[in-house]
């Protein structure tokens, strides 16, 4: 039950055999390689749509940097696959940075020149740390940590993931001595959310609306203009809930200055020349559109687009005109080929020379090639249409197995390394 709309192969001009060649040149013509890019930067923010191998790509870039450069590299990741977490020794590690032991590299037959560290973002722990940092006194701190709304925020507030990722990045960059930090960004509804998160959180705590909400609980004097607002709000939400909300904001306001200042610093760090962005995508239409939109946004915010990594790209031989001719011959003359090939197959082993079976194999092999050719061609067209101009454009082939250990990460890393 395979659906397909392959164009009738014979009716198409077979003259695009040279096209993958041309796009290869395009990729290597760039000024830099990822190797060079990572050597010149301190922070790489890895971003892109969900499901394209972002986490794995970030880890691979980090592993390669630790292997090849004599530097201290941190991979800050969000939600790695369990086997990947195992490979990086992250299982049960949580928020703390943790060095990937040299033993793990040795077991994979590798000798890193530098050090590889890894850490996983724990939202709740990170938020608690923030509150401890910014709270004016111990009482406020404890009240915030115990507030039901706060617990709701730290655990479930989606945008808080973005904020925390950027906040942690800033903290680690400022306080530790890593030569390179590779950050994986959380899966978001909108790939851009994390760029705005620091600003939004700052706005959140300084908003006029916040004051509106708090007023009636600070002084019981509500002016005539805003009274209808509270009446409606009371009626919908109930005054008890409103009071909880107000209490929460009153507590949080004590930390507003700290948050605002911090968010500005985070914003500056993202725009700094030491920071670059690596957009990860596949050549599927939807993720690629999202990745392109993201690249445009980076440009409009004057942030540095260092690299675009295209993952899971089908092999170039699928676009080979000669190979297609062979596949078509196999499909159209499978009966004849079945009879003709039987003797040479019989010479390999017994029971291999049943012509009907050979015909079935021919048909399947040819069909499969022509099927995947359609997808490969679509991918190539998508890639040709890519208008963003990063310093590095790397293409990673479709790996036939999952990547779940250091050797796998190195294999992937080598593809993007240049």
């Amino acid at each position, binding site marked *: 039950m395979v659906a397909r709309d392959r164009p009738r192969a014979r009716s198409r001009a077979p003259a695009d055999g040279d096209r993958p060649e041309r796009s290869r040149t395009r990729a290597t013509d760039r000024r830099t390689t990822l190797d060079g890019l990572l050597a010149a930067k301190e922070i790489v923010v890895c971003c892109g749509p969900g499901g394209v191998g972002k986490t794995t790509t970030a880890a691979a870039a980090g592993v390669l940097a630790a292997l090849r450069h004599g530097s201290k590299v941190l991979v800050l990741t969000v939600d790695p696959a369990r086997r990947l977490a195992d490979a990086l020794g992250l299982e049960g590690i949580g928020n703390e940075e943790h060095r990937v032991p040299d033993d793990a590299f040795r077991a994979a037959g590798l000798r890193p020149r530098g050090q590889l560290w890894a850490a996983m973002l724990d939202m709740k722990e990170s938020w608690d740390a923030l509150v401890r940092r910014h709270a004016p006194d111990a009482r406020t701190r404890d009240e915030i940590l115990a507030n039901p709304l706060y617990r709701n925020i730290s655990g479930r507030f989606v945008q808080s993931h973005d904020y925390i990722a950027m906040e942690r990045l800033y903290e680690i960059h400022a306080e530790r001595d890593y030569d390179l930090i590779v950050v994986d960004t959380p899966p978001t509804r909108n790939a851009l959310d994390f760029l705005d998160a620091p600003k939004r959180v700052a706005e959140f705590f300084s908003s006029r609306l916040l004051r509106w909400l708090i007023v009636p609980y600070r002084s019981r004097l509500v002016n005539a203009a805003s009274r209808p607002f509270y009446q409606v709000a009371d009626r919908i939400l109930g005054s008890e*809930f409103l009071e909880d909300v107000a209490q929460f904001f009153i507590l949080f306001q004590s930390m507003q200055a700290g948050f605002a200042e911090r968010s500005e610093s985070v914003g500056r760090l993202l725009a700094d020349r030491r920071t670059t962005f690596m957009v990860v995508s596949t050549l599927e239409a939807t993720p690629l559109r999202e990745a392109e939109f993201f690249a445009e946004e980076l440009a409009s915010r004057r942030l540095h687009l260092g690299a675009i990594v295209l993952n899971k790209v089908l092999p170039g031989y699928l676009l080979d005109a000669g190979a297609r001719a062979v596949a078509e011959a196999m499909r159209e003359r499978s009966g004849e080929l079945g009879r003709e090939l039987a003797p040479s197959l019989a010479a390999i082993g017994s029971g291999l020379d049943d012509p009907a079976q050979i015909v079935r194999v021919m048909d399947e092999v040819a069909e499969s090639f022509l099927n995947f050719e359609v997808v490969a061609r679509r991918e190539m067209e998508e890639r040709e249409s890519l208008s963003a101009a990063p310093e590095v454009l790397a293409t990673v082939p479709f790996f036939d197995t999952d990547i779940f250990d250091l050797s796998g990460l190195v294999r992937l890393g080598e593809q993007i390394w240049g």
Partner: protein
Amino acid sequence: MTPLLEHRLLFVTGKGGTGKTTVASALALFASTRGRRVLVCEVDAKGDVAGFYEAPPTGFAAKEVLPGLFAMTMDTEASLREYLKLQLRIPVVGRIGPLAKAFDFVATAAPGVREILTVGKLCYEVRERNYDLVVVDAPASGHVIGQLTAPQAINSLVKVGLIRTQTDWMVELLSDHRTTGLVAVCTPEEMPVSETVELAERVRSETTVELSAVVVNRVLPELFGRQEERVFEALDEPGPRDALRGLTGGDPGPVLEAARLAVTMRRTRSAHLEHLRAAVDPSVPMLYLPYLFTRSHGLRTTRQVAASLGEELGY
């Protein structure tokens, strides 16, 4: 278990990149071709759904995109307006601007509030019987739980008030397994599978909603039986390979290699599928959709997926 299409409210979720919106659009399309009056609602307002029917972008007001098939895009502020219009008999028109902003603001702090406006609107359409079936292109796996549990979350935070009185019937509607179901979309790859397994567990332990089906998208075809695979391996030996070269007049290498890639991909993916099947409650039906070797997206593709879904559902 209630047959999938006999539900009246279906949430479709899945990890990003698995084809969640494709499946939601196709499911809605298929139901509409079976004569149901269907509403498909996208919650993550990316404006994708309309594209799957090659229709102009949709808004909060549902539009008929194909016969019997209506599409809308969730907008929590519009949902609040509609809610107030229906529920409150006090003159709020002039005040609604700042109120909506304040609501948005409170909603940011207490996630249940925003989600209740989404779920509330959907439940309302079901309760009022405006449609036979409402299909929701829901948020990705991690976030859908928050949506499904929003009424309970509100119940625990808000003790009195209008909202509180509204959540009880929603809880009832969402908990009724003959009415409401959750469909998880996944692909036979490591991360999507482990996320689906995790989702199934969370749905069971944290919500009252039933996981009604798992849709496995992009399943690669099986190329060979065991004996055929032997023949295929033998073809790659120098003798037959040279013979094949002579007969076709070209290098068969890439063609054989492509088949080998397809076989390995299929095999790696089968392992993930076995893991999925073993980890998910056996009473939950699995629907398998083939990998589409197509050039483009759009209505034609949606129809293909809808047809495959129909086959898998036994129509």
